[in-house]
């Protein structure tokens, strides 16, 4: 029989205001096996932990239950405290009476009843707990960064500077990401390329950094410290070692009708292309969809003009398998599709553009060579209207419920730059709220209003109607003056909501990293572990975790790097002993568990078994405890109940359910 101690935490008033904590402790004493129960203001504090240690030693406890916050928060804390007092850390169970109880209930009586039930379930489980020993696993001293934008580049540089090997996997032909598409950056208005390209060069020249562009992560297996990743290097059709980056192939390529991804489809590019002049690596790729050689078999001009003989039409995708200790996700964002926002006439008029498209229009390397002009007729606009929150802060399912965070600032930037360069152009901004928290941000916005005379109207736009003469009639409301506005414009710019790169779902699934309803990767703790995924060894950098601007992205990229370095600096990690085990006598050998295991931890062997005197060779499941992550998928899939999870055995779970239903 276990000797169990129950410790009920008040969590200040977080729990005690809704749950009668002393009653929970009193009731606990009536549970089978419980020999000690007490409540205290903050169990996680040093004094609280000392109480636990004292009770373990004085009462000779063999197991403890802490009724407190989520085990996500303090399970590790209490396990360590118990271990210091001489108890096996796996003899500790947490009853979550905060997130699961006090925070979600108002009625004290009801909440107390539930807290008692949760405590009872945890006691029932501890009664069946057995001491477990953690094993050790090695750490591969190499990091993978998925995404080569500013977030990925910064993370890679920081990890590499600490002395660890880093691989960057970038889907497009060049690193640089969204930032490379921007013209100027707020609030200092320095040119984006001027600050980004040196970083790109630094990353590519760094002896510890290896960049795979035009490549994608295909498969991830393993676990923290020992991931195995398959990277698909897509066929570039250009030999990276031979190419000198002279650019002749791109000039001579006769197929020039493919839409330029870099310029957001506003102009075209050749079939063999580098996305932009400062691309790294400066090695083009052949777009097989657009290439005449691939479409018809005739052409081959690029091959003929290439002095270096770098063109290789036969090149095949290559799979590289590499081991990593840590993985950083830096997959970034895209603007949302505007199909559901027909009222803004984006699909009807070339002069209604997104802000990211405006970045390209204003950029010297863009489709208009930096001249502000209407894309329909090339005329200089005199009246420009910006519409904020297109798809952001949206209450229906057309858009996103969150604030995209960067739009207020870049719109102020655009407005200011236009008024500066073209003082005769009128600029009007329709906004819901102007949000400018950030160092020197509000000053920046006020400059746009006060110094540059940008006309800000609080109100939303209902409709943009293209007129026969090419003008755009904008119908909106001014909430401060309480009047309807009809205004003609030459150009309308939509501050389109941003969303995580759509590929992130696939990557998150491969990494078993959790994702929220908006496809942003979830952090391990919103406040205390903001750059770590709940999945050990996975770190988050940049907009894949939530909307942010460049300074924040760079700061977070550095933070993710530090977390990754902290992991890579270790030689060994303790492994989770809560892994699956198969009972050979019950195993049918049916392979169900092998098929359902997401970690490839289960294999089958022919083993001689002695089943109550009958000796026979049977096909049975064998779990590799180093690979098993203790997810329990096999235990529920196993029809005969042969698979069981240590620390979460079928009997323990049923005992908890029984205690709850009692």
């Amino acid at each position: 029989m276990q000797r169990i101690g129950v410790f009920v935490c008040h969590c200040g008033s977080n729990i005690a205001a809704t749950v009668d904590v002393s009653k929970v402790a009193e009731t606990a004493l009536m549970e089978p096996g419980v020999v000690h129960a007490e409540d205290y203001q903050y169990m996680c504090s040093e004094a609280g932990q000392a109480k636990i240690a004292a009770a373990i030693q004085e009462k000779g406890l063999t197991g403890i239950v802490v009724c407190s916050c989520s085990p996500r928060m303090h399970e590790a804390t209490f396990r360590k405290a118990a271990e210091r007092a001489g108890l096996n850390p796996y003899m500790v169970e947490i009853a979550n009476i905060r997130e699961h109880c006090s925070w979600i209930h108002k009625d004290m009586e009801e909440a107390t009843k539930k807290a008692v039930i949760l405590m009872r379930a945890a006691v029932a489980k501890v009664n069946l707990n057995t001491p477990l020993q953690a094993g050790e696993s090695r750490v591969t001293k190499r990091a993978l960064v998925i995404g080569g934008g500013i977030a990925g580049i910064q993370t890679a540089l920081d990890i590499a500077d600490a002395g660890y090997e880093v691989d960057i996997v970038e889907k497009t032909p060049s690193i640089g990401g969204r930032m490379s598409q921007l013209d100027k950056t707020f609030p200092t208005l320095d040119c984006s390329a001027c600050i980004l390209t040196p970083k790109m060069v630094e990353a590519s020249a760094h002896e510890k950094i290896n960049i795979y562009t035009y490549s994608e992560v295909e498969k991830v297996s393993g676990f923290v410290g020992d991931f195995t990743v398959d990277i698909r290097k897509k066929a570039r059709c250009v030999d990276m070692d031979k190419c000198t980056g002279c650019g002749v192939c791109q000039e001579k390529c006769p197929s020039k009708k493919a839409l330029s991804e870099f310029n957001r489809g506003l102009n075209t590019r050749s079939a063999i292309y580098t996305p932009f002049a400062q691309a790294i690596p400066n090695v083009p790729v052949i777009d097989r969809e657009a290439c005449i050689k691939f479409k018809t078999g005739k052409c081959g001009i690029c091959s003929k003009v290439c002095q270096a003989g770098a063109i290789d039409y036969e090149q095949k995708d290559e799979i590289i398998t590499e081991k990593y200790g840590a993985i950083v996700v830096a997959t970034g964002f895209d603007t949302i599709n505007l199909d559901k926002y027909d009222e803004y006439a984006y699909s009807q008029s070339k002069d209604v553009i997104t802000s990211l498209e405006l970045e390209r229009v204003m950029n010297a390397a863009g489709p208009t060579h930096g001249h502000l002009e209407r894309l329909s007729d090339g005329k200089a606009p005199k009246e420009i209207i910006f519409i904020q929150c297109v798809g952001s802060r949206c209450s229906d399912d057309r858009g996103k419920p969150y604030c995209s965070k960067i739009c207020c600032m870049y719109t102020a930037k655009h407005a200011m730059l236009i008024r500066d360069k073209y003082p005769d152009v009128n600029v009007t901004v329709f906004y819901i709220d102007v949000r400018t928290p950030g160092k020197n941000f509000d000053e920046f916005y006020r400059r746009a209003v006060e110094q540059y005379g940008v006309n800000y109207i609080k109100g939303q736009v209902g409709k943009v109607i293209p007129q026969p003469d090419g003008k755009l009639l904008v119908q909106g409301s001014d909430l401060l003056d309480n009047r309807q506005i009809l205004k003609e414009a030459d150009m309308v710019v939509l501050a389109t909501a941003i969303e995580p790169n759509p590929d992130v779902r696939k990557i998150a699934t491969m990494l078993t990293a959790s994702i929220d309803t908006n496809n942003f990767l979830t952090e391990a703790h919103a406040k205390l572990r903001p750059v770590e995924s709940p999945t050990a060894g996975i770190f988050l950098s940049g907009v894949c975790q939530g909307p942010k601007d460049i300074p924040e992205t760079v700061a977070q990229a550095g933070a993710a790097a530090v977390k990754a370095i902290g992991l890579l600096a270790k030689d060994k990690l303790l492994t989770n002993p809560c892994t699956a085990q198969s009972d050979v006598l019950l195993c049918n050998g049916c392979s169900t568990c092998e098929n359902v295991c997401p970690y490839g931890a289960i294999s089958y062997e022919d083993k001689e078994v002695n089943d109550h005197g009958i000796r026979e060779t049977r096909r049975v499941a064998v779990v590799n405890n180093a690979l098993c992550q203790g997810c329990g998928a096999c235990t529920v899939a196993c029809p005969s109940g042969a698979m069981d999870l240590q620390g979460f055995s079928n009997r323990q779970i049923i005992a908890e359910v029984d205690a709850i239903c009692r």
Partner: protein
Amino acid sequence: MQAIINRAKELLADGTVARVLGWKAGDLPYNPEPAYFETEEELKDFVYNGFCGANLSKYMIEASKLEGKTMVCLKPCDTYSFNQLLKEHRVDRDKAYIVGVGCKGKLDIERIKKQGIKGIESIEGAEISDEAETLKIQTIYGEKTLPYADAMLERCHVCKGKEHMVFDEQIGESKETKDAERFDEVAKIEAMSPEEKFAFFQSELSKCIRCNACRNACPACSCRKCVFDSNKFDSSQKANADSFEEKMFHIIRAFHVAGRCTDCGECSRVCPQGIPLHLFNRKFIKDIDELYGEYQAGEDTDSKAPLTNYTFEDAEPSIVGKRG
């Protein structure tokens, strides 16, 4: 039938197989039972007729452990079960010589009796070779006739088809017997209110006497040790926890075979209480089809199982929740 016996004799004689797994006559004209035959002499008891509903694929689990090959007679629907067992490594393909036997729909003696035909002495027209559309039944009250289709098992009305999914050779023709939609009965139950559903299942499952016939006949229920027989778990006690214990047994069983059940219908055929147990399994099959795409367990041996194979296209839990 004679063709099967002749072939069995040949295979036994030339040593291809060590035994034959088929059916032998029972004590009544309508209850043949599964049987092994090891000699030509024994084969004189071999029968194969409309009452040979038993799915012999499950017997191959034990037969796979015996010396030498076993010639096993499988009807088209039985071959799905064999494939599923093969997929789960429960039977050894090399130990089986599969004779795919023809089938023109199997008969349901309970259904015949329900139509007022009692005191049966003999039945004509149940032979496989017989082309007759009508059964001629001699009873102690005189001769009765019944259209063959009206005497068929429910499962044959929704027959999966006359193709054998796996075989070494085929003997005899099969007949298309499908004349009803497979999920009609399930749809009817789905349309009920929760109270009606509960009442329906309570009235059906309360007939259960826990004889375990459904479990013992089911080719998917092939665990070495069933959780209901094991002292390692509390499952059997759980199932005895209240006056409506049968629901737990049948619901747990349905979950255990979900995604693996080929819908062979043996559970309902062998139930002495006439409980339509197949409806549980068929509800799962319908849900699987709708949520994860059309899937027929046992159609092949290499496709991924819908419930234990994650894909990016899988329905989101919230969608499953909405459906209820």
